């Protein structure tokens, strides 16, 4: 009998299991199937901090959340509607995030006495009534998978491992996902072991038919495609977006890219990704430490490459002196900080945006650099190009602040047309610019205040540069008080002069009295919260900063147009402090530093209070 199909506008599913259960892969595949269908999606993985935490324990739980909808969405969802729990640990670790009424699919085979004890369950939550307010679907996932693969020439262990494909098959049926791409993926992934291709496909199909036949699932769901901009899409994480943006910047600048990096969570994936793209003239050097990584990038920039260094907060702390040198040398340097919860080692796998002060002020002396931040995974590509544009045009270090939330989260990315990307070509100095054939390394372009980029190998332009204060124009060492004062102001002006786009304000009503201002990865939750308010008839304006230094020219005017300005941040008010100091605006700072992104519902509740009280 054909089952009833119900239409949903959005669903949030969280796949959770032991790190060995393949939940990231399962989530990835489900996402890919969902993308093919044309839903809008947003995903967020959550990895355990330990590489191999003991199996079945709470610290070993790994999860992947996917939010998909028939409209455009901004976040991976505050709370899951469906939890797939592969073992008791996964259930326990995620239960507190589930709203009442949510669906739980559990792998009953793993609910053994031993596993329950491991996570401190005295009785099985499946039997003691504690899950009464949820829809629980107990499924013997492991044994059914093993049963389905009985005739396959593989070990019992391999058969058990295919249970994630059983789960994927079941969920794919339940949400009416197309699955050709998954089968294709399995064929490729296990190409070297055809018996595993067959087994995993069989497990997937077994899961699918189980969904179809079991009494447990009375209805099947559908989420219609979203109305998105026309064009070609792919799903992308922030880290991949940054890496591709850097490759693209190199191509558009017609410059070799040199990346210096030292592995650090959550930035390492950028190093991994860029290391694959040597054919674009990308050189990656895994340095001995972050200081060397920055030095390598700077040395490469000096030689006429696009020098880039990628890291997270602790690494930025180490690079600080090299960034200062780049600023004195007035050479391009792109520094990417994928922020994580600090200070010190902090919570490396958790997100935060508390490095803004370090990016703006974390150097000795008056040492301003350009600072920009992407707002979402798909925005990372453009942000990387923008960082390179500023570095190359203005010959300055640029700090790009991503964070763990957008680094690992993903969403559909409307593929750009290469020819439409900004032209980043620069001209190296080729001729002496002074009288009598003299070369003046610190004679600036009056418009950008950039000095000539005279790369070694250019005859007649031999010159010496360094970290000692420079005499304006000649670049000779100078201890002259007036010159130092002038140079300090000039370096400040160099950043102030950078042309950045105005900040846009979204206020469909045109009547809002409250502005919510954000930067970086809070864009999604803030945007979703604003929509929520508007749907309930409340007016609110949203503005989001990409450029944190210099700030957009129209920001002062924007701030002045509202009775109240609210700034939510995953720190203790760093942008809020900057805005108060710079514009004297009396902002309301809303802050949380829990290592987690804001949920849109908490922001909505907070904003509603503010809006109702103006």
């Amino acid at each position, binding site marked *: 009998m054909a089952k009833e199909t119900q239409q949903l506008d959005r669903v949030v599913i969280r796949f959770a299991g032991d790190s060995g259960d393949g939940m990231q892969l399962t989530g990835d595949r489900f996402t*890919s199937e969902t993308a*093919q269908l*044309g839903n809008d999606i947003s995903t967020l993985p959550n990895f355990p901090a330990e590489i191999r935490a003991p199996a079945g324990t709470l610290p070993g739980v790994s999860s992947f959340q996917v939010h998909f909808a028939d409209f455009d969405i901004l976040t991976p969802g505050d709370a899951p509607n469906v939890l797939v729990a592969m073992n008791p640990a996964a259930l326990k670790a995620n239960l507190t995030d589930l709203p009442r009424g949510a669906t739980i699919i559990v792998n009953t085979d793993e609910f053994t006495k031993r596993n329950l004890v491991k996570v401190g369950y005295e009785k099985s939550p499946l039997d003691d009534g504690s899950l009464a307010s949820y829809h629980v679907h107990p499924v013997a996932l492991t044994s059914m998978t093993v049963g389905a693969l009985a005739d396959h020439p593989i070990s019992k262990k391999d058969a058990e491992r295919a249970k994630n494909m059983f789960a994927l098959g079941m969920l794919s049926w339940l949400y009416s996902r197309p699955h050709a791409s998954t089968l294709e993926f399995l064929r490729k992934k296990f190409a070297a072991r055809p018996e595993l291709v067959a087994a995993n496909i069989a497990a997937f199909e077994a899961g699918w038919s189980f969904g179809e036949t079991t009494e447990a699932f009375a209805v099947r769901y559908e989420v219609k*495609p979203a109305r998105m*901009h*026309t*064009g*070609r*899409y*792919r*799903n992308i994480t922030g880290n991949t977006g940054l890496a*591709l943006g850097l*490759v*693209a910047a190199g*191509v558009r600048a017609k410059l070799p890219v*040199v990346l*210096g990096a030292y592995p650090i969570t959550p930035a390492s994936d950028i190093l991994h990704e860029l290391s694959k*793209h*040597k*054919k*674009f*003239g*990308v*050189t990656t*050097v895994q340095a*001995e430490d972050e*200081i*060397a990584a920055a*030095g*390598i*990038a*700077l*040395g*490469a920039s*000096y*030689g*006429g*490459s696009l*020098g880039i260094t990628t890291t997270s907060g602790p690494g930025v702390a180490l690079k600080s*002196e*090299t960034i*200062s*040198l780049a600023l004195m*040398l007035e050479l391009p340097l792109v520094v990417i900080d994928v922020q994580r919860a600090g200070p010190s080692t902090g919570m490396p796998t958790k997100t935060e945006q508390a490095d803004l002060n370090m990016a703006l002020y974390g150097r000795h002396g008056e040492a301003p650099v350009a600072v920009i931040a992407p707002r979402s995974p798909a925005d990372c590509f453009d942000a990387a190009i923008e960082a390179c544009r500023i570095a190359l045009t203005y010959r300055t270090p640029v700090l790009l602040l991503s964070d763990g939330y957008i680094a690992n989260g993903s969403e559909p990315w409307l593929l*750009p*047309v*290469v020819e439409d990307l900004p032209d980043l070509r620069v001209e190296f100095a*080729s001729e002496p610019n002074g009288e009598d054939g003299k070369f003046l390394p610190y004679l600036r372009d009056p418009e950008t205040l950039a000095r000539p980029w005279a790369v*070694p*190998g*250019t*005859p007649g*332009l*031999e*010159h*010496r*540069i*360094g*970290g000692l204060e420079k005499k304006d124009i000649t670049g000779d*060492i100078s201890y002259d008080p007036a010159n130092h004062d002038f140079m300090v102001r000039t370096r400040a002006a160099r950043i102030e002069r950078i042309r950045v786009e105005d900040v846009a304000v979204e206020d469909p009503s045109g009547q809002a009295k409250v502005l919510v201002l954000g930067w970086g990865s809070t864009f999604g939750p803030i945007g979703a919260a604003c929509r929520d308010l508007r749907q309930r008839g409340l007016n609110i304006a949203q503005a989001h900063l990409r450029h944190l230094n210099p700030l957009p020219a129209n920001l002062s005017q924007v701030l002045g147009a509202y009775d109240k300005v609210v700034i939510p941040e995953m720190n203790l008010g760093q942008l809020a402090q900057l805005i108060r100091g710079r514009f004297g605006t009396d902002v309301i700072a809303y802050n949380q530093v829990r290592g987690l992104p804001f949920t849109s519902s908490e922001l909505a509740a907070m904003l509603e209070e503010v809006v109702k009280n103006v």
Partner: protein
Amino acid sequence: MSSVPVQLSAKDFKSDQEVRWCPGCGDYAILAAMQGFLPELGINREKIVFVSGIGCSSRFPYYLNTYGMHSIHGRAPAIATGLSVSRPDLSVWVVTGDGDALSIGGNHLIHALRRNVNLKILLFNNKIYGLTKGQYSPTSELGKITKSTPYGSADSPFNPISLALGAEASFVARTIDSDRKHLQSVLRAAAEHEGSAFVEIYQNCNIFNDGAFDVLKDPETRDAYLIGLQHGEPITFGKDREWCVVHPPGAFGLEVRRTSEVDEREIVVHDATVAEPAYAFALSRLPGGDLRHTPIGVFRSVGRPTYDAIVQEQVATAQAKLGGTAEEELANLLNAGDTWSID
């Protein structure tokens, strides 16, 4: 950017900057030797880059009319690595001090040597922090009395040659500021070496550590103290070659003997190309705390693929596979993976 090599002289390598070391500083002699040597390289000025750290010694690039960067304390090897790996057409030199290279920058030095980056690294060893006015350094002898160690330093020094060998250096040499001919011969050998060339230059700081190397310079003592290494020659020294170096059977290292007391065949014939670094290491351990039996010259010079070459080869091989223009390939890269269309 193409350039035809031209015949240059020492004068061409002098910059217009006033040299600002203390009168009598050993750095002057090294600078003069370098300016005298550079024309020999047969490389145009624009293709030569000196990168230094911070210290008196690190002012060196300002005085040479080549490209130069006076960077930050200890980091020159890292910066030079980025330059060298991306610009194989350049001749890249690093100038550093004993504090710069072995204290704050120790990590970068050993990794540059390990990678065998194509850098010529000149360590001016005056066994003191000159620029910061006379604190002991990682090469100062144990018990050294300085401003920061009025009761004598409590830490044993590095032997820079041993350290470089331990870091897998493919070329290791030592020379002295005052012996221009020797200094230039070592620079020549370093310049000819493909890969990292590490050169320790004993340099007198006449203000804060005057006379540190006098025994190696004084005509009275130098013959008995210095061991000049010549590739392919038996290692003998002294006014009348009355001393020699042997490898006694069963001993771990090398030892000094009276030439008259050993069979000629027992005298070690210097071979800088020995693959096993233990030999050069044994040479590096010959001097005692009083500098007696200090070898100078090239300890080790072996061929090994350079980091630069391997990295460039990888990039070149990958680039050779470019099917279309970079823009077309970029479009393919962006469109790779699971994509879908919304019409």
